[in-house]
Protein backbone atom coordinates (compact mmCIF):
# COMPACT_ATOMS: atom_id res chain seq x y z
CA UNK A 1 0.00 0.00 0.00
CA UNK A 2 1.33 3.40 -1.04
CA UNK A 3 0.08 6.48 0.79
CA UNK A 4 0.34 9.96 -0.74
CA UNK A 5 0.82 11.98 2.42
CA UNK A 6 1.71 15.30 0.79
CA UNK A 7 -1.40 16.97 2.17
CA UNK A 8 -1.17 15.40 5.63
CA UNK A 9 2.37 15.81 6.96
CA UNK A 10 2.07 19.51 7.79
CA UNK A 11 -1.23 19.03 9.61
CA UNK A 12 -1.14 15.74 11.51
CA UNK A 13 1.34 13.59 13.39
CA UNK A 14 2.05 10.66 11.09
CA UNK A 15 3.15 7.24 12.33
CA UNK A 16 3.98 5.00 9.37
CA UNK A 17 4.15 1.92 11.62
CA UNK A 18 0.68 2.56 13.00
CA UNK A 19 -0.61 3.14 9.47
CA UNK A 20 1.09 -0.12 8.46
CA UNK A 21 1.67 1.18 4.92
CA UNK A 22 4.36 -0.15 2.56
CA UNK A 23 5.30 3.29 1.27
CA UNK A 24 4.55 6.84 2.36
CA UNK A 25 5.44 9.80 0.14
CA UNK A 26 5.35 13.53 0.80
CA UNK A 27 6.77 16.69 -0.72
CA UNK A 28 8.84 19.42 0.89
CA UNK A 29 6.89 22.42 -0.31
CA UNK A 30 3.67 21.39 1.44
CA UNK A 31 5.42 21.39 4.81
CA UNK A 32 7.13 24.78 4.62
CA UNK A 33 10.22 23.29 2.97
CA UNK A 34 11.72 23.86 -0.47
CA UNK A 35 10.19 22.85 -3.80
CA UNK A 36 11.51 20.02 -5.94
CA UNK A 37 12.37 17.63 -3.13
CA UNK A 38 10.33 15.13 -1.18
CA UNK A 39 10.53 12.03 0.95
CA UNK A 40 9.69 8.42 0.20
CA UNK A 41 9.44 6.13 3.19
CA UNK A 42 9.46 2.44 2.32
CA UNK A 43 9.33 -0.80 4.25
CA UNK A 44 12.94 -1.92 4.55
CA UNK A 45 12.45 -5.45 3.22
CA UNK A 46 10.61 -4.12 0.16
CA UNK A 47 13.31 -1.56 -0.52
CA UNK A 48 15.96 -4.26 -0.15
CA UNK A 49 14.13 -6.43 -2.67
CA UNK A 50 13.71 -3.64 -5.21
CA UNK A 51 16.28 -3.09 -7.99
CA UNK A 52 17.80 0.39 -8.43
CA UNK A 53 15.70 2.55 -10.75
CA UNK A 54 18.56 4.75 -11.89
CA UNK A 55 22.31 4.27 -12.05
CA UNK A 56 25.06 6.75 -11.30
CA UNK A 57 27.58 7.77 -8.70
CA UNK A 58 27.16 6.78 -5.03
CA UNK A 59 24.69 3.99 -5.75
CA UNK A 60 27.28 1.34 -6.53
CA UNK A 61 29.35 -0.72 -4.11
CA UNK A 62 31.63 -2.58 -6.46
CA UNK A 63 31.66 -2.56 -10.26
CA UNK A 64 33.26 -5.44 -12.16
CA UNK A 65 32.91 -6.52 -15.76
CA UNK A 66 31.39 -9.79 -14.51
CA UNK A 67 29.12 -8.43 -11.80
CA UNK A 68 28.13 -5.21 -10.08
CA UNK A 69 26.90 -4.89 -6.52
CA UNK A 70 24.96 -1.92 -5.21
CA UNK A 71 25.40 0.25 -2.17
CA UNK A 72 23.17 -0.32 0.89
CA UNK A 73 19.98 1.65 1.49
CA UNK A 74 19.25 4.45 0.98
CA UNK A 75 22.21 5.06 -1.38
CA UNK A 76 21.04 2.35 -3.77
CA UNK A 77 18.22 4.69 -4.78
CA UNK A 78 20.16 7.97 -4.74
CA UNK A 79 22.24 7.99 -7.90
CA UNK A 80 24.42 10.93 -8.78
CA UNK A 81 24.82 14.29 -7.09
CA UNK A 82 21.88 14.82 -4.77
CA UNK A 83 19.91 18.02 -4.17
CA UNK A 84 22.13 18.84 -1.18
CA UNK A 85 20.85 22.33 -0.39
CA UNK A 86 17.25 21.12 -0.85
CA UNK A 87 17.83 18.25 1.58
CA UNK A 88 19.40 20.55 4.19
CA UNK A 89 16.45 22.96 3.89
CA UNK A 90 13.91 20.14 4.01
CA UNK A 91 15.58 18.77 7.17
CA UNK A 92 15.24 22.25 8.72
CA UNK A 93 11.51 22.23 7.89
CA UNK A 94 11.13 18.76 9.43
CA UNK A 95 12.97 19.88 12.59
CA UNK A 96 10.76 22.97 12.77
CA UNK A 97 7.55 20.94 12.57
CA UNK A 98 8.94 18.34 14.99
CA UNK A 99 9.60 21.11 17.50
CA UNK A 100 5.95 22.12 17.55
CA UNK A 101 3.16 20.59 19.58
CA UNK A 102 1.42 18.56 16.85
CA UNK A 103 -1.84 18.28 18.74
CA UNK A 104 -1.95 22.04 19.28
CA UNK A 105 -1.35 22.62 15.55
CA UNK A 106 -4.18 20.24 14.63
CA UNK A 107 -6.51 21.88 17.18
CA UNK A 108 -5.67 25.37 15.90
CA UNK A 109 -6.36 24.36 12.29
CA UNK A 110 -9.54 22.50 13.22
CA UNK A 111 -10.92 25.56 14.99
CA UNK A 112 -10.03 27.77 11.98
CA UNK A 113 -11.84 25.29 9.74
CA UNK A 114 -14.97 25.40 11.90
CA UNK A 115 -14.89 29.20 12.04
CA UNK A 116 -14.34 29.51 8.27
CA UNK A 117 -17.09 27.02 7.43
CA UNK A 118 -19.60 28.88 9.63
CA UNK A 119 -18.48 32.24 8.31
CA UNK A 120 -18.63 31.25 4.62
CA UNK A 121 -21.97 29.48 5.06
CA UNK A 122 -23.45 32.87 5.92
CA UNK A 123 -22.51 34.26 2.46
CA UNK A 124 -25.59 34.20 0.28
CA UNK A 125 -25.33 31.92 -2.74
CA UNK A 126 -22.24 30.16 -1.42
CA UNK A 127 -22.10 26.38 -1.36
CA UNK A 128 -19.39 24.40 0.42
CA UNK A 129 -18.28 21.34 -1.57
CA UNK A 130 -17.07 18.51 0.68
CA UNK A 131 -18.22 18.37 4.27
CA UNK A 132 -16.70 15.17 5.64
CA UNK A 133 -16.61 15.49 9.44
CA UNK A 134 -12.94 14.49 9.75
CA UNK A 135 -11.59 16.39 6.73
CA UNK A 136 -8.37 18.39 6.81
CA UNK A 137 -8.35 22.18 7.25
CA UNK A 138 -9.65 23.05 3.76
CA UNK A 139 -12.87 24.63 2.54
CA UNK A 140 -13.83 24.13 -1.10
CA UNK A 141 -16.72 26.29 -2.24
CA UNK A 142 -18.63 27.74 -5.18
CA UNK A 143 -20.66 30.88 -5.64
CA UNK A 144 -23.92 30.29 -7.53
CA UNK A 145 -23.54 30.83 -11.26
CA UNK A 146 -19.94 32.03 -10.99
CA UNK A 147 -16.87 30.30 -12.37
CA UNK A 148 -14.34 29.50 -9.61
CA UNK A 149 -11.55 31.19 -11.61
CA UNK A 150 -13.45 34.48 -11.49
CA UNK A 151 -13.75 34.25 -7.72
CA UNK A 152 -10.06 33.34 -7.46
CA UNK A 153 -8.99 36.34 -9.56
CA UNK A 154 -11.00 38.78 -7.46
CA UNK A 155 -9.77 37.25 -4.19
CA UNK A 156 -6.21 37.49 -5.48
CA UNK A 157 -6.73 41.19 -6.21
CA UNK A 158 -7.79 41.63 -2.60
CA UNK A 159 -4.68 39.92 -1.27
CA UNK A 160 -6.32 36.58 -0.47
CA UNK A 161 -4.52 33.53 -1.86
CA UNK A 162 -6.69 30.52 -2.67
CA UNK A 163 -6.43 27.67 -5.12
CA UNK A 164 -9.01 27.45 -7.90
CA UNK A 165 -9.79 24.84 -10.52
CA UNK A 166 -10.09 21.08 -10.58
CA UNK A 167 -7.39 20.41 -7.95
CA UNK A 168 -5.93 17.55 -10.03
CA UNK A 169 -9.24 15.71 -9.61
CA UNK A 170 -10.94 16.17 -13.00
CA UNK A 171 -12.97 12.91 -12.85
CA UNK A 172 -14.31 13.96 -9.44
CA UNK A 173 -15.31 17.41 -10.76
CA UNK A 174 -17.05 15.70 -13.71
CA UNK A 175 -18.91 13.40 -11.32
CA UNK A 176 -20.00 16.41 -9.23
CA UNK A 177 -20.99 18.26 -12.42
CA UNK A 178 -18.93 21.35 -11.57
CA UNK A 179 -16.04 23.05 -13.43
CA UNK A 180 -13.94 23.17 -10.27
CA UNK A 181 -14.01 24.89 -6.91
CA UNK A 182 -12.39 27.70 -4.97
CA UNK A 183 -10.38 26.22 -2.11
CA UNK A 184 -9.12 28.02 0.96
CA UNK A 185 -6.56 26.08 2.99
CA UNK A 186 -5.68 26.84 6.59
CA UNK A 187 -2.39 26.25 8.24
CA UNK A 188 -0.63 26.82 11.52
CA UNK A 189 0.27 30.41 10.60
CA UNK A 190 -3.32 31.50 9.85
CA UNK A 191 -5.51 33.36 12.32
CA UNK A 192 -9.22 34.08 12.71
CA UNK A 193 -8.49 37.53 11.23
CA UNK A 194 -7.44 35.78 8.00
CA UNK A 195 -10.80 33.99 7.94
CA UNK A 196 -12.57 37.35 8.38
CA UNK A 197 -10.55 38.78 5.50
CA UNK A 198 -11.44 35.79 3.32
CA UNK A 199 -15.18 36.09 4.09
CA UNK A 200 -15.16 39.81 3.40
CA UNK A 201 -13.25 39.34 0.14
CA UNK A 202 -15.71 36.64 -0.98
CA UNK A 203 -18.61 39.03 -0.27
CA UNK A 204 -16.88 41.77 -2.29
CA UNK A 205 -16.23 39.33 -5.17
CA UNK A 206 -19.85 38.23 -5.07
CA UNK A 207 -21.08 41.82 -5.29
CA UNK A 208 -18.82 42.44 -8.30
CA UNK A 209 -19.92 39.30 -10.12
Amino acid at each position, binding site marked *: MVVDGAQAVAHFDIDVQALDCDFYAFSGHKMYGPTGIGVLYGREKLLEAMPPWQSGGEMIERVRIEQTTYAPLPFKFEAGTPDISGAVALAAAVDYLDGLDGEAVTNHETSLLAYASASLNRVEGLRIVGTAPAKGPVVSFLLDGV*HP*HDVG*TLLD*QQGVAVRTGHHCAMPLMDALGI*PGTVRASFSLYNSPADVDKLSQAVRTARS*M*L
Partner: protein
Amino acid sequence: MTLATSAPALDDIRSTFGFFDSWQDKYAFLIDIGKALTPLPEAYRIDDNLVRGCQSQVWLVPRFDGDHLGLAIDSDAHIVRGLIAIVLAAYDERSPREILDFDIEALFDELDLMGHLSPTRGNGLRAMVGRIRGIAQEHADH
Protein backbone atom coordinates in the same frame (compact mmCIF):
# COMPACT_ATOMS: atom_id res chain seq x y z
CA MET B 1 -28.70 32.22 -37.77
CA THR B 2 -26.62 35.33 -37.29
CA LEU B 3 -24.19 35.28 -34.43
CA ALA B 4 -23.95 38.87 -33.30
CA THR B 5 -21.52 40.28 -30.81
CA SER B 6 -21.79 43.43 -28.76
CA ALA B 7 -18.31 44.44 -27.72
CA PRO B 8 -17.59 48.10 -27.01
CA ALA B 9 -15.31 50.01 -29.39
CA LEU B 10 -11.60 49.66 -28.81
CA ASP B 11 -11.17 53.37 -28.11
CA ASP B 12 -13.85 53.20 -25.40
CA ILE B 13 -12.04 50.29 -23.76
CA ARG B 14 -8.72 52.18 -23.94
CA SER B 15 -10.10 55.37 -22.42
CA THR B 16 -12.10 53.59 -19.70
CA PHE B 17 -9.10 51.49 -18.68
CA GLY B 18 -6.97 54.62 -18.58
CA PHE B 19 -9.58 56.35 -16.43
CA PHE B 20 -9.57 53.72 -13.66
CA ASP B 21 -6.74 53.73 -11.14
CA SER B 22 -7.51 50.55 -9.27
CA TRP B 23 -7.54 47.04 -10.64
CA GLN B 24 -10.72 46.33 -8.73
CA ASP B 25 -12.42 48.97 -10.92
CA LYS B 26 -10.82 47.52 -14.04
CA TYR B 27 -12.04 44.05 -13.16
CA ALA B 28 -15.54 45.42 -12.49
CA PHE B 29 -15.41 47.00 -15.97
CA LEU B 30 -14.18 43.73 -17.55
CA ILE B 31 -17.02 41.85 -15.84
CA ASP B 32 -19.53 44.44 -17.10
CA ILE B 33 -18.44 44.35 -20.73
CA GLY B 34 -18.29 40.55 -20.52
CA LYS B 35 -21.85 40.37 -19.23
CA ALA B 36 -22.98 42.70 -22.03
CA LEU B 37 -21.71 40.30 -24.73
CA THR B 38 -24.35 38.40 -26.61
CA PRO B 39 -24.21 34.84 -25.27
CA LEU B 40 -23.34 32.11 -27.74
CA PRO B 41 -26.39 29.87 -28.24
CA GLU B 42 -26.14 26.51 -26.48
CA ALA B 43 -25.94 24.68 -29.84
CA TYR B 44 -22.53 26.29 -30.49
CA ARG B 45 -21.11 25.49 -27.06
CA ILE B 46 -19.68 22.20 -28.25
CA ASP B 47 -16.25 20.60 -27.94
CA ASP B 48 -15.45 21.25 -31.62
CA ASN B 49 -15.63 25.00 -30.96
CA LEU B 50 -13.49 24.96 -27.81
CA VAL B 51 -10.24 26.92 -27.90
CA ARG B 52 -7.46 24.65 -26.68
CA GLY B 53 -5.13 26.09 -24.07
CA CYS B 54 -7.75 28.04 -22.12
CA GLN B 55 -8.21 27.08 -18.49
CA SER B 56 -11.85 28.13 -18.55
CA GLN B 57 -14.04 26.95 -21.41
CA VAL B 58 -13.90 29.28 -24.41
CA TRP B 59 -15.95 28.60 -27.54
CA LEU B 60 -15.08 30.38 -30.79
CA VAL B 61 -17.18 30.35 -33.97
CA PRO B 62 -15.71 32.16 -37.00
CA ARG B 63 -17.62 33.14 -40.14
CA PHE B 64 -16.78 35.14 -43.22
CA ASP B 65 -18.89 38.05 -44.44
CA GLY B 66 -17.27 38.77 -47.78
CA ASP B 67 -13.62 39.25 -46.88
CA HIS B 68 -14.33 40.20 -43.26
CA LEU B 69 -13.95 37.71 -40.45
CA GLY B 70 -16.87 37.75 -38.02
CA LEU B 71 -16.28 36.20 -34.62
CA ALA B 72 -18.66 34.86 -32.01
CA ILE B 73 -16.82 33.93 -28.82
CA ASP B 74 -18.11 33.02 -25.37
CA SER B 75 -16.91 31.55 -22.09
CA ASP B 76 -18.28 30.13 -18.87
CA ALA B 77 -16.25 32.66 -16.82
CA HIS B 78 -17.21 36.33 -16.49
CA ILE B 79 -13.71 37.81 -16.46
CA VAL B 80 -12.78 35.73 -19.50
CA ARG B 81 -15.88 37.13 -21.24
CA GLY B 82 -14.50 40.59 -20.51
CA LEU B 83 -11.19 39.62 -22.11
CA ILE B 84 -13.15 38.25 -25.07
CA ALA B 85 -14.83 41.66 -25.43
CA ILE B 86 -11.38 43.24 -25.78
CA VAL B 87 -10.32 40.62 -28.34
CA LEU B 88 -13.55 41.18 -30.28
CA ALA B 89 -13.05 44.95 -30.20
CA ALA B 90 -9.66 44.38 -31.83
CA TYR B 91 -10.49 41.62 -34.31
CA ASP B 92 -14.21 41.29 -35.04
CA GLU B 93 -15.37 42.22 -38.56
CA ARG B 94 -11.85 42.91 -39.80
CA SER B 95 -10.13 41.50 -42.87
CA PRO B 96 -7.54 38.73 -42.37
CA ARG B 97 -4.82 41.24 -43.33
CA GLU B 98 -6.03 43.77 -40.74
CA ILE B 99 -6.08 41.05 -38.09
CA LEU B 100 -2.56 39.90 -38.92
CA ASP B 101 -1.27 43.48 -38.97
CA PHE B 102 -2.85 44.46 -35.66
CA ASP B 103 -0.35 44.45 -32.77
CA ILE B 104 -2.51 43.00 -30.02
CA GLU B 105 0.45 42.47 -27.69
CA ALA B 106 0.97 46.24 -27.74
CA LEU B 107 -2.68 46.67 -26.76
CA PHE B 108 -2.30 44.17 -23.90
CA ASP B 109 0.82 46.07 -22.78
CA GLU B 110 -1.01 49.39 -22.97
CA LEU B 111 -3.84 48.00 -20.82
CA ASP B 112 -1.25 46.27 -18.59
CA LEU B 113 -3.34 43.11 -18.85
CA MET B 114 -0.64 40.46 -18.71
CA GLY B 115 0.76 41.88 -15.49
CA HIS B 116 -2.61 41.40 -13.81
CA LEU B 117 -3.68 38.05 -15.20
CA SER B 118 -2.49 34.76 -13.79
CA PRO B 119 0.03 33.06 -16.13
CA THR B 120 -2.53 30.39 -17.08
CA ARG B 121 -5.12 33.04 -17.92
CA GLY B 122 -2.57 35.02 -19.89
CA ASN B 123 -1.70 31.86 -21.82
CA GLY B 124 -5.40 31.23 -22.44
CA LEU B 125 -5.79 34.74 -23.84
CA ARG B 126 -2.82 34.14 -26.14
CA ALA B 127 -4.33 30.79 -27.19
CA MET B 128 -7.50 32.63 -28.22
CA VAL B 129 -5.46 35.21 -30.14
CA GLY B 130 -3.42 32.41 -31.76
CA ARG B 131 -6.57 30.63 -32.94
CA ILE B 132 -7.96 33.83 -34.52
CA ARG B 133 -4.66 34.71 -36.17
CA GLY B 134 -4.46 31.12 -37.46
CA ILE B 135 -7.87 31.46 -39.12
CA ALA B 136 -6.85 34.85 -40.54
CA GLN B 137 -3.58 33.37 -41.83
CA GLU B 138 -5.38 30.57 -43.68
CA HIS B 139 -7.59 33.07 -45.47
CA ALA B 140 -4.88 35.67 -46.08
CA ASP B 141 -2.94 33.06 -48.06
CA HIS B 142 -5.79 32.48 -50.50
